[in-house]
């Protein structure tokens, strides 16, 4: 890890250079909401100006550039009495600019799940390794609670991280590639003053958090409160629409679909993003559903998120971005559900 | 030799909806020639009563699967005129673009998939896939473009989703528009090939003088709203559409008939061409010349040719509009309004002729009364009288009943009737 400082003007030139040479994805205003406030999404950008690096939060997370909603895992080409399988997981290199700490932490969690374990996913790995990630800090929103989960700062899983210290960015360079990219760019070593500004900025951001979620002992609380009436209360409201999982940066559960092409000469096996909230997630042949009730399914998502599953070392996988809470029409959000559970116990 | 004929085409194929042709010739004399629509009526006007005005376009688009964008636009115009809603210019242009997409897609469907098999002597387009792969390929490409055009602008080709009261809901991206423009430009070559193909075909030579009714162009070839005009010199404002159509009921068909200065009149591509030739772009005028069409033409089979000319015209006009839209960068696409009571008419040139919607809206913004007049309804009488004249002429020429039957079918198809529409 090496720290440098770059002026904002110089930074723009640097990023423009990246955009020129690579497919680049950045935060972009795509719409306005009912109150006239901008709605942001990560989209491909062709120039620095198209991005809005001061964005509040993107509606969906950056996850889908690593785990696309629909992704071909392999294809079969049929010949007369036989078939051939092709598995392709190479992707073109690209850059993603302006990713917030919580979102990078979410990628780090996905790394554990999808690259760790006995069966690493080459599809995810290829995308992850070929993405040049430029992170950036920001002022938390009213309902962000990443701080409660310790996910408001990030220490790894990116190439370059920028912290705003006025007219300059305080850079954390995390990879040799980032270092090499910066070779012809005017960057300086941080001065004493820069360091002070850096610490002030961090402190200021930390003090801004308004939403607190009580995480103490949550794992055992979740186990004990498996039959709590809290689940029924929220389950009755839940639409089981999967919106939360689709926008969440860490929800990765999926399904496999196999379809024959219209010409009947080939077929595709695809991974499709799913959600444990959806009605048939745990349904088996013959129609038996292991989670028949809305509350079962809702509970399951919370269980996965806050109790954690073996694959990621039983840690919570939520990063506290509250995208799910914002997307949920029924007003179900982690803060209320968890704080209520904590009260129960 | 005295000719006897008994032609009974029950459910004419390759048209939208259910219609029958019935011809009786006895001893060389025409006894009976009928065009009867037997589609099941659906009572849209009745269903509209009590519906919130914002759902009227969604509901009426289901009158017809082919010209659903046309119905949506006529309905929107009626609602907007009833409540005095002005829509932004960019929205107008986007709506017209969607309209052009539909015109293109409908005309192509008719020319290639429904009418062409007749000219090439086959039952349907399916055998053409093998016998005329290049023609089918071209048709499929052009139709793909038309569909995508509707999808991009209106959200969906059949039953659009982003055309709403006050304007449009969604703007295409710059990139989408740029690609679309490029694709239209590329496909113009296919239109040229189509013209080449049509040059070699000979359309039946049949003339029955009639009156042609369409919207009246002011500065450009007319599509949405404005005065109404006929080749017999009648001009009326949009709101007087009833005086232009004079609907009446006949007892052998579920669809109504219409008339103006004569026993019948025609609407559609040929009518628009006859009334508004001067507003066509130069390239389209040239095509008209190449294909031997000049105003005022009274051969109903030439409707197919007029359709090809219109395809070319709308493609070129679309390119111009996309340029304008790109330059404007569309800021304003939807106006706010407060629902209020009122009455309004919307007249729109859909592929088969003028479509009228008229609504009365109550204080709660609900439809109190509705009336829709569909182009095919306006054309029914003309088809009916054409059939009689056609049979008379062909019997004189000594044609066999098989030949006459085919010519009759082709005649009806030439109007591209949209029958389920006509009994909405």
């Amino acid at each position, binding site marked *: 890890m090496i720290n440098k400082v770059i002026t904002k003007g110089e930074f723009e030139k640097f990023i423009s250079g990246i955009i020129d040479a690579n497919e680049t994805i950045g935060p972009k205003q795509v719409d306005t909401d009912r109150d006239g406030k901008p709605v942001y999404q990560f989209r491909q950008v062709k120039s620095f100006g198209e991005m809005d690096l001061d964005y509040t939060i993107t509606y969906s997370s950056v996850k889908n550039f690593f785990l696309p909603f629909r992704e071909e895992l392999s294809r*079969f080409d049929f010949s007369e009495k036989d078939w051939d399988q092709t598995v392709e997981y190479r992707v073109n290199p690209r850059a993603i600019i302006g990713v917030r700490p919580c979102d990078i932490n979410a990628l780090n969690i996905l790394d554990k799940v999808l690259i760790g374990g006995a069966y690493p996913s080459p599809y995810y790995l290829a995308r992850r*390794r070929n993405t040049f990630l430029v992170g950036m800090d920001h002022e938390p929103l009213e309902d962000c609670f990443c701080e409660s989960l310790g996910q408001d700062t990030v220490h790894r899983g990116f190439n370059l991280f920028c912290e705003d210290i006025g007219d300059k960015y305080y850079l954390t360079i995390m990879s040799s590639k980032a270092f090499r*990219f910066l070779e012809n760019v005017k960057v300086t070593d941080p001065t004493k003053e820069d360091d002070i500004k850096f610490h002030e900025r961090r402190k200021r951001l930390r003090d801004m958090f308004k939403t607190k979620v009580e995480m103490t002992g949550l794992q055992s609380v979740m186990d004990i409160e*498996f039959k709590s009436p809290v689940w029924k209360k929220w389950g009755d409201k839940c639409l089981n629409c999967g919106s939360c999982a689709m926008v969440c940066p860490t929800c990765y559960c999926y399904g*496999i679909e196999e379809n024959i092409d219209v010409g009947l000469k080939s077929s595709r096996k695809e991974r499709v993003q799913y959600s444990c909230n959806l009605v048939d997630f*745990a349904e088996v042949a013959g129609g038996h559903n292991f989670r028949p009730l809305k509350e079962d399914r809702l509970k399951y998502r919370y269980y996965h998120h806050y109790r954690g*599953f073996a694959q990621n070392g039983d840690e919570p996988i939520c990063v506290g971005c509250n995208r799910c809470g914002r997307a949920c029409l029924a007003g179900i959000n982690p803060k209320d559900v968890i704080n209520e559970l904590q009260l129960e116990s | 030799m005295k000719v006897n004929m008994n032609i009974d085409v029950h459910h004419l194929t390759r048209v939208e909806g259910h219609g029958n042709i019935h011809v009786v010739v006895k001893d060389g004399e025409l006894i009976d020639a009928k065009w009867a629509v037997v589609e099941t009526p659906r009572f849209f006007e009745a269903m509209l009563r009590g519906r919130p005005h914002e759902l009227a376009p969604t509901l009426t688009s289901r009158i017809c699967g082919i010209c659903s964008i046309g119905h949506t636009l006529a309905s929107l115009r009626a609602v907007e005129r009833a409540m005095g809603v002005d829509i932004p210019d960019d929205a107008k242009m986007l709506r017209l673009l969607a309209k052009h997409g539909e015109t293109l897609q409908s005309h192509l469907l008719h020319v290639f998939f429904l009418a062409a098999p007749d000219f090439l002597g086959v039952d349907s387009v399916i055998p053409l896939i093998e016998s005329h792969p290049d023609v089918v390929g071209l048709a499929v490409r052009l139709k793909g473009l038309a569909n995508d055009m509707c999808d991009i602008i209106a959200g969906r080709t059949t039953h659009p989703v982003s055309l709403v009261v006050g304007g449009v809901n969604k703007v295409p991206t710059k990139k989408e528009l740029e690609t679309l423009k490029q694709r239209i430009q590329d496909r113009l070559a296919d239109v040229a090939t189509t013209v080449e193909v049509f040059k070699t075909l000979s359309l039946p030579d049949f003339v029955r003088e009639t009156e042609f009714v369409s919207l009246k162009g002011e500065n450009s070839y007319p599509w949405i709203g404005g005065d109404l005009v006929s080749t017999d010199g009648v001009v009326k404002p949009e709101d007087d559409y009833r005086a232009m159509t004079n609907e009446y009921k006949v007892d052998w068909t579920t669809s109504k008939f219409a008339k103006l200065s004569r026993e019948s009149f025609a609407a559609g591509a040929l009518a628009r061409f006859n009334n508004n030739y001067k507003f066509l772009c130069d390239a389209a005028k040239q095509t008209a010349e190449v294909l031997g069409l000049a105003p005022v033409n009274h051969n109903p089979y030439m409707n197919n040719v007029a359709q090809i000319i219109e395809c070319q015209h709308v493609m070129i006009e679309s390119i111009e509009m996309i340029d304008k839209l790109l330059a404007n960068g569309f800021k304003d696409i939807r106006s706010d309004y407060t629902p209020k009571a009122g009455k309004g008419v919307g007249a729109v040139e859909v592929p088969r002729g003028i479509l009228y919607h008229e609504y009365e809206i109550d204080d709660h913004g609900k439809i109190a009364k509705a009336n829709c007049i569909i182009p095919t309804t306006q054309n029914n009488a003309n088809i009916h009288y054409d059939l009689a004249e056609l049979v008379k002429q062909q019997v004189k020429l000594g044609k066999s009943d098989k030949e006459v039957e085919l010519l009759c079918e082709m005649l009806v198809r030439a109007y591209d009737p949209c029958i389920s529409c006509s009994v909405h």
Partner: protein
Amino acid sequence: MDYKVPKQDINTDPLLSKSPDFNRKSAVMKTDKVYKCEIINIVELTEFEKLFRLKIADRTERELFDFRPGQFAMLEVPGFGEVPLSITSSANNKEYIELCVRKAGRTTEVLHQARLGTKLGLRGPFGTSFPMEEMAGCNILLIAGGLGLAPLRAPIYWASENRNQFKEVHVLYGTKEPAQMLFTYQYGEWEKVNNIKLHTIVEKGDSDWKGRTGLITELFDEVTIDPQNTYVIVCGPPVMFKFVCHHLNGEGIPMNRMFVSLERRMHCGMGKCCRCMVGSTFTCVDGPVFDYWSVLNLKEAI
């Protein structure tokens, strides 16, 4: 532009320390690449179940496919889907593997139409297995309901092939009707050649049925259990093993000597898709074989 940033090349950045080598042969099934195999025999066991014998085409791959009783494989029917199936042949057999398939849905229905010589894809083996070595010197009680006999066939082979390592071996097997009994043609061999005691029962007999009728738990009166010296494997519908395990627990068999094989929906077999989660446990990598104590600890397991 003032600055030229080099175009990135593929896979050069050591951003992630761990980089598995997917080109190694042994890692093949860690991606979605399948072993190609051929159907070399089909036995119609019942109206709904068929036994497929599959031979992996490539020799090296065949040798690599090394499984233990209780493990499962993902069988790919190109174009239609992939299904988890317990391997039902002997773990000792390096020539071919056998899978017993019930016609249950989209993929399995198509699979039932397959003929000799059909090429399919195989991934695996996956999951945990029964601790056969640990059972040496003890009695084994294998209890199956319906299709549950399929996963038990591999341990039965194991017990037969190493018969002198074990004391008494009992198979308790129950189905709804006699026509649903699987592998009937092997019963004689099991009893006579391998000295395995087979006890069967059906819920509803027919005119030809001479055996017992009733629920599987009734078969317990036929065996005397030495709780300190017995291992149990149970496979069948959840309701069944709930009763069976409860009963045996009462008999004093330690929970960590009773094993069950769980069935859940599975899409990947690799602990990723989460379809097979029970509580916070993956059926595919932490299971499908669990001891009874673990099952009791899994929320919503039964």
